[in-house]
């Protein structure tokens, strides 16, 4: 049935108040999608500005102090307002109850509250930008952050507030997954995206409070001078780093696990084949979540921590790499003898495979103690984390966005322009960041406003890459927004997938399903679901 249902969650009920006071997880998800898109735009603008300044060693468009604020804000906005909430709030909220055959999440009012908390935190962060800004780097290292001017307190309070949004989302999802599954939906029939969201939620719940207390202590240090991180008062500035990274390392798995969950959905559907190694992938998500709490010291190998501690952290860091590798091998094996269709979601999944593999492998250089000494605090690290965060999570997010787009809006986007945009994003990304690995190995430190002349050619290429990347995103925004109004009606199951969300209409009705579904097969059992591979393009 390729028509848009007359009454769906988007057009009924109507009015601004029905959106702002909604308890429908799908509407909340759409509102979050708008929020994180704005955050991505803002963070992206700062990124383009950074790259513009770095075209030449001398001043291009801003002074050193402004540059320091710009890179701080780029990091803080991208991390706390875009990528950590990211996939769980914008896609997870919309899709999770549908995947489970449920009517909503366990606590719809808490869900709405989480959105408002997110908005309040975002507003606080934006106000902080205008009332004195922050130049500490997103990592707020002491003692620099305790003494510098600017709106550090307001910004850290904003992050503290945002942390609650993250915790409540994770809490909501865990209870939803435990209690609201449709009849027949056993644990090992769950779509792997659900496993990914679950593992993510565990980290959100357990790690975020540590960030909370770290920020409280930083604020008290600034306002009251409690001296906990101040060496002149008997405190230890490196203790801040331990507290900070105890959250922020697990946080990077909050960023990647949902992305990996999406890839686990895309590859089977677009290969029209059951995923290879379902249990391995499911267990590896939990393995990653567990080990992620034990490796924070690999951010601190040269911080003055004991060599013994560094050795233990290095060993554990290698261990956390193994489950990620296992996933990559299983995804690739899924494609073997499949029936592969290269629509945009699959192009993003393949981009993920390419880029995340590079990102993950470059982690090996950083986990190895001797090479880390040379590479840490250089552009090598900047390249590494952009490859895993952007080449990984963002590519997965875009793949998921394009995959579930027709389900959310009932309409298809323009596939031709989508492919162009994907190509520009992929090429632009590599040009921007591949060069930065070399900048790093050659000795260019990070967070540098000016640099030695010998680094200029590589910086030039990197900046040009950022323009290609930006163009790709501009095109994407245009065709996606247009499709909301003009897109071809998509029908219930345009991709030939076998998970529950494709058994209801596009867009779904407010209550998700006309009747509670009963599950009798696995999520990638296309034959049992009676779904043929789609073949139209």
């Amino acid at each position, binding site marked *: 049935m390729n028509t848009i249902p007359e009454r769906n969650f988007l057009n009924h009920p109507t009015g601004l108040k029905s959106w702002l006071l909604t308890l429908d997880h799908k509407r909340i998800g759409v509102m979050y999608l708008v929020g994180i898109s704005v955050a991505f735009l803002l963070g992206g603008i700062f990124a383009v500005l950074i790259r513009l300044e770095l075209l030449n060693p001398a001043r291009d468009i801003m002074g050193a*102090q402004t540059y320091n604020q710009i890179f701080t804000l780029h990091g803080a906005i991208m991390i706390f307002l875009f990528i950590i909430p990211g996939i769980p709030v914008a896609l997870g909220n919309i899709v999770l109850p549908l995947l489970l055959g449920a009517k909503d999440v366990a606590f719809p009012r808490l869900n709405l509250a989480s959105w408002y908390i997110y908005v309040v935190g975002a507003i606080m962060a934006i106000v902080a930008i205008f009332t004195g800004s922050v130049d500490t*780097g997103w990592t707020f*290292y002491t*003692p620099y952050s305790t*003494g510098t001017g600017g709106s550090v307190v307001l910004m850290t309070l904003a992050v503290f507030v945002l942390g609650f949004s993250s915790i409540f989302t994770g809490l909501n999802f865990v209870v939803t997954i435990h209690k609201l599954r449709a009849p027949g939906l056993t644990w090992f029939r769950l779509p792997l995206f659900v496993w990914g969201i679950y593992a993510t939620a565990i980290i959100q719940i357990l790690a975020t409070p540590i960030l909370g207390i770290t920020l409280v202590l930083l604020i008290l240090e600034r306002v009251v001078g409690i001296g906990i991180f101040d*060496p002149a008062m008997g405190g230890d500035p*490196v203790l801040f780093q331990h507290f900070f990274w105890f959250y922020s390392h697990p946080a990077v798995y909050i960023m990647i696990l949902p992305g990996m969950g999406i890839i686990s959905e895309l590859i089977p559907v677009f*290969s*029209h*084949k*059951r995923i*290879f*190694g*379902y*249990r*391995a992938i499911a267990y590896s998500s939990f393995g990653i979540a567990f080990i992620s709490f034990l490796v924070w010291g690999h951010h601190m190998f*040269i911080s003055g921590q004991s*060599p013994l501690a560094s*050795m233990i952290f*290095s060993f554990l860091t*290698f261990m956390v790499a*193994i489950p990620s590798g*296992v996933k990559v*091998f299983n995804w*690739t*094996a899924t*494609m073997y003898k*499949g*029936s*592969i*269709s290269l629509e945009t979601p699959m192009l993003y999944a*393949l981009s993920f*495979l*390419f880029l995340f*593999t590079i990102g993950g*492998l470059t982690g*090996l*250089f950083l*986990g*190895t*103690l*001797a*090479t880390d*000494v*040379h590479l*840490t*605090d250089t552009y090598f690290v900047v390249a590494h984390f952009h490859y895993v965060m952007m080449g990984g999570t963002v590519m997965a997010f875009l793949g998921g966005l394009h995959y579930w787009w027709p389900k959310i809006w009932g309409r298809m986007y323009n596939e031709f322009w989508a492919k162009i945009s994907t190509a520009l994003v992929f090429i632009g990304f590599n040009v921007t960041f591949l060069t930065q690995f070399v900048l790093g*190995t*050659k*000795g260019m*430190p*990070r*967070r540098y*406003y*000016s*640099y030695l002349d010998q680094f200029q050619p590589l910086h030039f290429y990197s900046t040009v890459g950022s323009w290609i990347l930006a163009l790709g995103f501009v095109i994407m925004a245009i065709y996606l927004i247009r499709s909301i109004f003009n897109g071809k009606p998509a029908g219930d199951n345009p991709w030939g997938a076998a998970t529950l969300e494709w058994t209801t209409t596009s867009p779904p009705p407010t209550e998700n399903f006309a009747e509670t579904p009963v599950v009798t097969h696995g999520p990638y059992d296309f*034959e049992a679901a009676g779904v*043929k*591979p789609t*073949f139209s393009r």
Partner: protein
Amino acid sequence: MDTTGTLLMPPASSTIAGDVDALFYLILYISIFFFVLVVGAALIFTLKYRRKGEAAVESQVDHSLKLEIVWTVVPVIIVVILFVLGFTVFMKMNIVPKDAIEIKVTAQRWLWTFDYPGGSNSVNELVVPAGKPIKLLMSSTDVIHSFFVPDFRVKMDVLPNRYSTAWFTAPDPGEHNLMCAEYCGKGHSEMLARVKVVSDREYTEWLQKGSGPPEGMSLEKYGEGLFTSRRCVTCHSVDGSVNVGPSFLELFGHQVYFKGGGQTVADENYIRESMLDPEAKIVDGFDPVMPTYQGILNDREIDALIVYIKSLGNQREH
């Protein structure tokens, strides 16, 4: 500038650099292998198994315990090897040879000072003898910095109120860049210094000389050199442009106005006081961020700088 080194690495100029680079390239080759394996397989499968119709797929094999074990155990073996190699070289980096020459390093916003055995010191220039192990005892006077010499593959954070240690042996004479690698504010990328590896004899001579103008050089010229090597140039200009600190152009002999009222004519005493006790008087419109040069500049150097600043006093034709 960087004409040597390999494709990816700067010149290997310390005794540990070779070990680090060998490990780096080992990891690189392993990474390339796995990258080609994964991406190659994905590409081949994409091309070979392109969707051609509505037909169901050939194979529904969806798990293999054997494969899972293989691609878990093999990577574990590889990473354990990398771990062992990594920590072996790391231990070498952390165990300082007994006979190392100890040099004290002080980092501050935004310059490096070095104190040598025997009492001499230098700013932004680390002079060491070739072929001898050098132990650096480092601390910061303000925030966390990081001592980074890419050519030596040496990096170590420099902390306030605590000492951290690093060591290296540079076998050959040459000059190398020293940079701060931990974000420390506005001048983070200006903390550029040089490591000068010289022969044993030159090092001993340099220590004895302390510091002073080479023979035949005028005091004014010496002062001009110090203006750069002691990094006054980081914050003061000589062309009238306002930076972190006031410009030296048109300074000597003119009125200076201070924060909170008060003024003076910039004479020899004022210049000298500004170097040794910068907090005493703050020029209106500037922040009290100048570090003191007490113990860093000796009297001869202060004289030379004053002469140089004097020479900039009446440049403008008016």
